[in-house]
């Protein structure tokens, strides 16, 4: 990371630490969801951005993480923290397992295969009602004797979410500057050339996938505990995957800050519109996304970096540069 990057990151972190003190609980909860989405987008970015393997099934790990936590806390009466740790490990292992066949596929075929994994996993959860509650959902006991962990409340979950995001960003930053990160980017740019200079492509892809899965599962675990009752439709919703992709891409895929910036921008914008354009906010939101793509075709982070470097924001120039 550059020095300027580190300063910005530290400042952002400080602001995020102060935030709960200044916000109403409902807004803290909104911010918690923003942080979780930023984690998801950052995690997606490791496999989808750096390695260029656009997973359309990362929600599988979100769901797997959430359900692992829920099942461990209800059926095994484990406390939350060990549950979420195990959830992350489990998801990473699962990713490595499915990654073995699936990461052999390229491009869009990979995208669909992972989508299939997520949809399949959801159906498995629906069809195991004894363990998972099936379609009726599973409720983590938070009151009374069956509660294993004190329910941390709105602010408590904010801290959990912040911790998870910090982990995700730290991992991303570490990956980005490392040899491993170069390997992933080489794979993204030209897998044959990457192999020919000595990148162990299979191992690198598996590691990236597992890492992405583990971080995603952490977010899933926090989300599940916060929600108390979770349902397969929501925890394995394709929409969440799409949002991960959209946020990472809009912010700037294969950058450390891009997914975070994208998640903050989109989630806060979405929230703002939802509050102020009752019932029509998605129309406005859709239109804004369309406009953002047209004017910031390299993503927010790269486009603003360019504008900063050139001391000039040429929106129309960009349009001219990318149109057919």
């Amino acid at each position, binding site marked *: 990371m550059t020095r300027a990057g580190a300063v910005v990151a530290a400042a952002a972190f400080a602001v995020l630490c102060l935030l709960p003190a200044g916000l109403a609980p409902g807004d803290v909860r909104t911010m918690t969801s923003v942080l979780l989405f930023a984690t998801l987008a950052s995690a997606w970015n490791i496999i989808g951005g750096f390695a260029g393997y*656009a997973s359309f099934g990362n929600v599988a790990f979100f769901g797997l993480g959430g359900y692992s936590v829920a099942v461990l806390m209800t059926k095994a009466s484990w406390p939350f923290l060990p549950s979420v740790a195990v959830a992350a490990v489990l998801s990473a292992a699962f990713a490595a397992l499915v990654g073995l*066949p*699936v990461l*052999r*596929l*390229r*491009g*869009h*075929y990979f995208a*669909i*295969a992972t*989508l*299939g*994994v997520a*949809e*399949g996993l959801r*159906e*498995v959860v*629906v*069809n195991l009602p004894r363990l998972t509650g099936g379609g009726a959902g599973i409720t983590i006991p938070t009151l009374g004797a069956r509660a294993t962990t004190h329910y941390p409340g709105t602010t408590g979950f904010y801290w959990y979410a912040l911790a998870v995001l910090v982990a995700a960003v730290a991992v991303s930053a570490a990956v980005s500057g490392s040899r491993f990160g170069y390997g992933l980017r080489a794979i993204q740019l030209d897998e044959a050339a990457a192999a020919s200079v000595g990148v162990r492509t299979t191992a690198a892809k598996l590691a990236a996938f597992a890492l992405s899965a583990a971080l995603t599962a952490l977010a899933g675990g926090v989300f599940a505990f916060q929600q108390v009752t979770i349902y397969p439709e929501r925890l394995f919703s*394709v*929409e969440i995957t*799409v949002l991960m*992709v*959209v946020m990472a*891409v*809009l912010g700037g*895929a294969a950058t450390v800050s891009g997914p975070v910036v994208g998640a903050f921008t989109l989630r806060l914008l979405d929230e703002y519109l939802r509050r102020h354009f009752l*019932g*029509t906010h*998605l*129309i406005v*939101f*859709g*239109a*804004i*996304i*369309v406009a*953002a*793509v*047209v004017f910031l*075709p*390299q*993503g927010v982070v790269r486009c603003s970096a360019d504008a900063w470097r050139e001391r000039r924001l040429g929106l129309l120039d960009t*349009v001219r*540069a*990318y*149109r*057919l």
Partner: protein
Amino acid sequence: MAEFLQAAVNGLLQGGILALVGLGFSLVWGVTNIVNIAHGAFVVAGAYVGWELHDSLGLNPLLGMLVAAAVLFVVGYGLQRGLVNLVVNAPVWMTLLLTFGLQLLAVNVFVKVATSDYRSIPTGWAARSLALGDVRVPYGRLVALGVAVVCTAGLVVFVERTRTGRAIRAAGMDRSTARLMGIDVRHVYAVTFGLSAALAGAAGVLVGMVGTFSPPDAARYTLFSFVVSVLGGLGNMGGALAGGLLLGLVQAFVGQYLATTLVNAAAFAVLIAVLAVRPSGLLGRPFYETRVEAR
């Protein structure tokens, strides 16, 4: 035995609809490398056109289908020309983002304009069926399968055999060189997108005829399209048909002999199995691999 045959018939007929829904998606994805998330919205839009024509003019849905296709062709052409062409040179996933925005916009406009009520385009004959012994073949779905086959064949001939089709494929592989050859890529891309939208529109009318539709269904049609086109092999029109039929059959047989709740899980299991053996889909050629994404 009757059950087996009935399941096979159900699967093939459902597969025909899936194939038609996915056909245009596969065309656009394979040729222009645009993952059109808004494809499902085109399907729903087509259904509305057909419904409106039937509701207000009493137009036969099969004629309505032609009108819907024409209307959506124009819409698709305009969208590509005016909007998507602005970002085709941006990184690949940006177009996905763009169409995601379009889909949000479209679906919610439908909700506003038409409410999210369920609708269907009623016809007397579509719900009747041909009885072959114990096996029933509903006419509506049979027609849908027929349309799917005809459209696929037509598209294959168009793309593989005509000058414009060749230009479409060339433009998809290397835009800037295609322009050097005198191909008007903006137009060709717009035609491709328009065709895809037209097919979606036609599919929408058929979906509305044999079942129901409402705006939130759009996402599901996009998902089906995804699976069908990848299963068959991207950008391969025959593949989309094969993919749709295979998907329909898998769902039908799994529903019949395993559990009806497992149909989607099974469909994806088959998808992954197919890709494990054929990484470019059933009939896919790895031409996506050799695409030149430079300008």
